C-alpha cells in the first residue's frame, strides 16, 4: 500500500487538471463531485498507508516519482518521503480538506464559478501535499509557491469586487517577501552542502557546524523569514485579516488549517539547523510569544466574525511558534493538528452563519441564533471551547496545556514565555466567548433566512467530534500519561529537554491554566450576557487603546508609510519609463528620418534630373581627385 504514496498528491492534481481543462463542459454538480472524490480518495489512501505504517512500525519511506532536473551539482526529483511528521500533516490536510470540500459543495451551490473554485481547491491541496511530502528543499519550495499562488487565486475568488483583488494581492506580496528570504536561505544551504536533500542536510549539519555557528544562525533566520511570511507572524502578519475576503471554506482550509501552518512544518522539518542555532530558535519563540499577544488583543476588539477568527489563527500559530522556539517540537505539531480541527470547524460554522444571514459579517448585528440553528450553535460552541481550552473535555485543553507547561518547564523556556502564554490563554478565552455570546445569545437582530443542509452540517459535526476526542491521544503525566503522539513523532523530532525539577510542577501549571481559562470565560459571560452595557463603558474608557487594537496595532498604516507610499511615488516618477524611452526614442528617430527622406521625393521631374546631375558631378569629381 505504501508504494501508492505518489498517488496522494497526484490525485488532487488530476482533479484540478480535469476541472481546468474540461470544467466548462461539465455540470456544476459533476465538477463538485470530481473535486470532492479525488480528495476523498487521497484521504482514503492516507488512512491505509497510515495504518500500514503504524502497524509495521516503519520509520520512513522514500519514493521518487519522477526526475525533475539536474543542473551541475543539483539533482532535483519529485521525491517523496513519508515519515511521522509528514504523516500527521498528510492526515490533517487530506481529512480536513475532504470535509471542507464536502462543505463547499453546499456553500458554493448557488455560485456561478463553483467549478473554478473546486479546481483551485484541488490545486491547493496538491501543492500542500507536495510541500509536506517533499524530500528535497527545491520540491518543497515548489509546493510553497504553489500554495501561495492558490491562496492568491482563492482569496480573490470573487474577483468582480475590487477589494477582494487588493486583499489577494496584499497576501501574495507579503508572503513573497517571506519567500524571498526563504529562497536566499536555500541558496546558502546549497552553497554550504552542495545538495538540497533534507535528510542529507540534517545529517551533515552537525558534522559541519558547531552549536552557535554563524552560518547556521543566518540560514536559520532566513528560513524563519520565510516561515513568518507564510504563517502570518510578526512582522508579516497583516495580510491574514484581509484575506478573509475569500469564501469561508477557503479561510477554513488555507488560512486556518493548512497553508499558514507551512511555516510550522518548515521549522519542524529543519529542526536540525535550529538546534545548531540557539539564537534563531530563541527568536522563533519570541516572535511567537509577541505575535500571540498582539493578535489576541486585536481579536478582542473586532466586530467582523471572520476577522476575529483570523486574528485568533495568528495568535494560535504564535503558540506553535512559541512551542518550536522553546524546543517543544512534538507539542507544536500536536497543537497544529488540534488547531486544524477546531479552527476549520469554527470557520466553517462562521461561514454557515454568514451564509444564512445573507453575508452579514458583523457580530453585533447577529444574535439569538442559538435556537434557530442548533447544529451550528453546538458545533460552534464545541469549537470555541476547544479554542479557549476548556479543561478536560476539549482537545484544545490538552494541546495548549502541554505548550503552557513546556513553556515553564523546558530548558529553553522561561518565565517570560510562560507569562506570555498564560496571558494569551486568558485573552483567547475572553475573545472566543465574547464571539460566542454576542453571536448566538441575546435577541435576534437579523433573521436567518435559509438554514444549512446536510452537506454543510455533516462536516461541522465530524470536526466537532474530532475537536473533542482528538486530544486523548496525548495525555499529560497527571492524566494517564498517554503519549501516542509524541511516540509517533519520536524518530523524527527530538524530545523536549526539561530543566530539573520540572515534572513536579506539571499539576500546578494545569490548575493555573484551567483557572485562567474559566476566568476568561466568566469575564466574557459577565461582560456580554449579565451586564452588556459594561462592555461599552470599558470600550469608551479606553477608546484609544481600543482603536489601536482594532487597527491591528497600526501595522497596516506603518507599512503603508514605510513601503507602499515610497514605491508608489517612485513608480509615478518612472511613469514615463526611462528604459522604454530608449525604444520609443529609436522609433521616433526612425520616423523622423523617414519623414525627412520622404521629402526628397517631390514628384517633380526636374528635381530628379537635378539629382542625377549632381550625382554625376560628384562621381566625376571624386574619380578625378583620386586618380588624376
Amino acid at each position, binding site marked *: 500500500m505504501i508504494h501508492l504514496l505518489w498517488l496522494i498528491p497526484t490525485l488532487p492534481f488530476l482533479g484540478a487538471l480535469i476541472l481546468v481543462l474540461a470544467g466548462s463542459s461539465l455540470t456544476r454538480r459533476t465538477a463538485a463531485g470530481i473535486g470532492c472524490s479525488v480528495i476523498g480518495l487521497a484521504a482514503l489512501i492516507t488512512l491505509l498507508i497510515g495504518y500500514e505504517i503504524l502497524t509495521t512500525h516503519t520509520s520512513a519511506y522514500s519514493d521518487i516519482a519522477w526526475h525533475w532536473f539536474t543542473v551541475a551539482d543539483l539533482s532535483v526529483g519529485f521525491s517523496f518521503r513519508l515519515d511521522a511528521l509528514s504523516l500527521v500533516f498528510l492526515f490533517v490536510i487530506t481529512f480536513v480538506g475532504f470535509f471542507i470540500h464536502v462543505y463547499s459543495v453546499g456553500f458554493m451551490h448557488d455560485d456561478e464559478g463553483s467549478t473554478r473554485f473546486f479546481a483551485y481547491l484541488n490545486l491547493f491541496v496538491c501543492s500542500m501535499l507536495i510541500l509536506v511530502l517533499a524530500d528535497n528543499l527545491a520540491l518543497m519550495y515548489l509546493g510553497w509557491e504553489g500554495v501561495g499562488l492558490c491562496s492568491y487565486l482563492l482569496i480573490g475568488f470573487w474577483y468582480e469586487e475590487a477589494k477582494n483583488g487588493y486583499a489577494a494581492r496584499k497576501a501574495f506580496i507579503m508572503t513573497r517577501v517571506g519567500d524571498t528570504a526563504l529562497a536566499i536561505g536555500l541558496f546558502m544551504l546549497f552553497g554550504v552542502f552542495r545538495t538540497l536533500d533534507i535528510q542529507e542536510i540534517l545529517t551533515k549539519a552537525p558534522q559541519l557546524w558547531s552549536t552557535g555557528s554563524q552560518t547556521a544562525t543566518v540560514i536559520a533566520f532566513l528560513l524563519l523569514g520565510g516561515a513568518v511570511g507564510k504563517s502570518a507572524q510578526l512582522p508579516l502578519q497583516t495580510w491574514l485579516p484581509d484575506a478573509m475576503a475569500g469564501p469561508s471554506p477557503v479561510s477554513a482550509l488555507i488560512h486556518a488549517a493548512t497553508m499558514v501552518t507551512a511555516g510550522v512544518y518548515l521549522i519542524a522539518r529543519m529542526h536540525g539547523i535550529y538546534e545548531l542555532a540557539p539564537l534563531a530558535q530563541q527568536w522563533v519563540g519570541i516572535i511567537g510569544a509577541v505575535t500571540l499577544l498582539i493578535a489576541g488583543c486585536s481579536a478582542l476588539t473586532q466586530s467582523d466574525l471572520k476577522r476575529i477568527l483570523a486574528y485568533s489563527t495568528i495568535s494560535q500559530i504564535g503558540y506553535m511558534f512559541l512551542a518550536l522556539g522553546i524546543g517543544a517540537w512534538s507539542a507544536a505539531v500536536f497543537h497544529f493538528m488540534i488547531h486544524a480541527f477546531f479552527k476549520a470547524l469554527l470557520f466553517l460554522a462562521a461561514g454557515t452563519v454568514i451564509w444564512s444571514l445573507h453575508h452579514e459579517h458583523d457580530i453585533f448585528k447577529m444574535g439569538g441564533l442559538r435556537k434557530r440553528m442548533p447544529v451550528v450553535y453546538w458545533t460552534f460552541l464545541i469549537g470555541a471551547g476547544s479554542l479557549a481550552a476548556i479543561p478536560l473535555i476539549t482537545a484544545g485543553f490538552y494541546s495548549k496545556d502541554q505548550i503552557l507547561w513546556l513553556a515553564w518547564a523546558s530548558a529553553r523556556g522561561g518565565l517570560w514565555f510562560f507569562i506570555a502564554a498564560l496571558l494569551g490563554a486568558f485573552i483567547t478565552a475572553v475573545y472566543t466567548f465574547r464571539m460566542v455570546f454576542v453571536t448566538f445569545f441575546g435577541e435576534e437582530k437579523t433573521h436567518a433566512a435559509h438554514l444549512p443542509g446536510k452537506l454543510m452540517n455533516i462536516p461541522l459535526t465530524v470536526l466537532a467530534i474530532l475537536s473533542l476526542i482528538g486530544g486523548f491521544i496525548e495525555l499529560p503525566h497527571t492524566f494517564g500519561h498517554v503519549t501516542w503522539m509524541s511516540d509517533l513523532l519520536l524518530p523524527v523530532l527530538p524530545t523536549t529537554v526539561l530543566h530539573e525539577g520540572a515534572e513536579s510542577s506539571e499539576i500546578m501549571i494545569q490548575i493555573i491554566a484551567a483557572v485562567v481559562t474559566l476566568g476568561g470565560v466568566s469575564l466574557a459571560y459577565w461582560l456580554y450576557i449579565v451586564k452588556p452595557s459594561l462592555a461599552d463603558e470599558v470600550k469608551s474608557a479606553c477608546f484609544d487603546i481600543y482603536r489601536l487594537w482594532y487597527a491591528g496595532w497600526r501595522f497596516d498604516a506603518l507599512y503603508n508609510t514605510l513601503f507602499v507610499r515610497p514605491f508608489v511615488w517612485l513608480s509615478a516618477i518612472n511613469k514615463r519609463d526611462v528604459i522604454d524611452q530608449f525604444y520609443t526614442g529609436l522609433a521616433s528617430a526612425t520616423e523622423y528620418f523617414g519623414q525627412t527622406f*520622404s*521629402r526628397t*521625393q*517631390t*514628384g*517633380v*521631374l*526636374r528635381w530628379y*534630373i*537635378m539629382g542625377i*546631375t549632381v550625382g554625376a558631378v560628384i562621381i566625376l569629381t571624386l574619380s578625378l581627385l583620386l586618380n588624376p
Partner: protein
Amino acid sequence: METAAVEYGLVLAGTLFVLGLISVLIRRNIIFMLISVEIMLNAAGLAFIAAGARWGQADGQVMFIFIITMAAAEVSVGLALILQIYHQLKTLDSDAADKMKG
C-alpha cells in the same frame, strides 16, 4: 579627305550634351524637355562617331545607328505619353504630374 582632330569632336559633343542638360533642368514644359533629351542623345551619338573615327572602324557608326533607332522609338512613345498627360492634366507642366510625391 582630311579628318578633323578627334578631341575637338569630343569637346563639341560634351558641350552640346551639357547644353542639353541645362535645358532639361530648367524647362518646365514637357515637350521642351523631350527636345532637350534629343539634343543630348545627338551629342552622345557624336561622341561615338568621333571615337569610331579615331579607331578607324565602323563600330562607331553602327552604334550611332542604334542610338538613332532608339531615339526614334523613344520619341514616338514619349509623344504618345505626352498626349495622354495633356488629356489627363490639361496642361503641359511637368510639375503638375507629381502624384508620386512623398
